[in-house]
């Protein structure tokens, strides 16, 4: 899904534009960054309610090209600034995490499949 299609699906808006040609297949939602770093595959949309700069750092480390913030939480300027510097797209959804994910799943964004917990 292109960023434009994502924001249409969740009645959201684009806060930092994506590099041209960005097309996302997978989504991953969490508010805890270590969970993201543990499980997420590269090139996935990060859906989170965490709006501080660490959400962008996490995306940078895990090679995630785009972040969608939920619950209409507008990120602080330093978050947007860092995302812009790193070329990471930022979007905003007015719905809760659950509804945002539901709408995106319905619109065709896929999950990563079953997680195998390795103790």
């Amino acid at each position: 899904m292109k960023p434009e299609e994502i924001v249409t699906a969740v009645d959201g808006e684009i806060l930092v534009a994506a590099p041209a040609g960005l097309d996302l297949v997978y989504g991953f939602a969490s508010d805890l960054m270590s969970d993201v770093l543990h499980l997420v595959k590269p090139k996935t949309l990060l859906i989170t309610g965490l709006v501080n700069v660490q959400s962008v750092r996490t995306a940078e480390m895990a090679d995630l090209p785009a972040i969608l913030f939920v619950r209409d939480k507008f990120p602080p300027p330093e978050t947007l600034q860092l995302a812009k510097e790193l070329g990471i797209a930022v979007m905003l959804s007015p719905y809760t995490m659950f509804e945002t994910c539901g709408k995106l799943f319905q619109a065709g964004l896929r999950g990563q499949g079953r997680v195998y917990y390795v103790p």
Partner: protein
Amino acid sequence: MESLPARAERAITDKDARNIGRIEELSYELRISEVMTRNFLSVSPDLEMEQVLDLFRQVRISGAPVISEGEVVGILSIEDLIRCLREGNTRVPVTQYMTHQVVTVRAHDSVVEALKLFTQRQFGRLPVVDEAGKLVGIITKGDITRGVLKALESDYQTEEVRRYRASHLFEDIISDRSSLMLRYVIEPGNFVEGGQASSHIKRALLRLGASPQIARRCGIAVYEAEMNLIIHATNGGTITTEIEPHLINIQVVDDGPGIEDPALAMKPGFSTATERIRELGFGAGMGLPNIERCVDEMSLESALGIGTSLSMKIYLQPQESLEQWHYYFVSLGRWEKTRRATARTSGN
């Protein structure tokens, strides 16, 4: 002219400015003087339209400023010539068909000023004047495109040269054992700058020619360790990364408070983080397990009241492929097991 309002809306406003990409950034960085055409052709006001027609055809241009005694008095475009031809009135001076009210741009201004005019009004070219109002050049959309492409190319080349130099660093320098040390001091509690060291290390690795997979694993491991220093270490700590051609060796050291039970700290889900830390997105209890998963070797030593020392190693060549095979087989095995189980329950 129905398309005019839509074009006008596309002009860059301050509201859009926060979403600009590199090309738009360049249109702010580049000066009009850097992209304009300096050797341009001009016509004098008393020239006949027929002569202009020949001139435009010969030099293959579609417009020119009209100059009288060094001053721009008008601008003549191909549209004016077409109008003149339709009226069959070619033996008149250019002053009869040229645009008299000339909009100019200043050489010192950003390219974006010219872009705004090109998008708001349907100009084909704009005369460029200096501070004193003297005509010094002409700018067209084509000049802007060429200028931006040239700047992008030079951006790209600079980055390529940097990358090339960095990736050949170890080949160029001969010693019995070469390595590159990167040291970072991490302040306690500094969440806003947290992750900067990891970001620098990851970028350095990519510059040095490491694969994106290696850079990602290393980035995640160091980032978790860096956030641990910020969250838990009383006085912060240091991250030392030693890069060798075949090995990345990372040491993360702090002087307290120390981990009570290092084995328990390694358990996925175990965390001593406060509610405040969790609100900041950390404390899932996956930090150390994450690090262990990302690196090839890891050792954690800690003593209460003394401090913690975390050592990580990532091998660059043969082990990388071995590990990938290992992961591949493990996931293949699991997949096969699930497939069989599903086949049994569904009766297929």
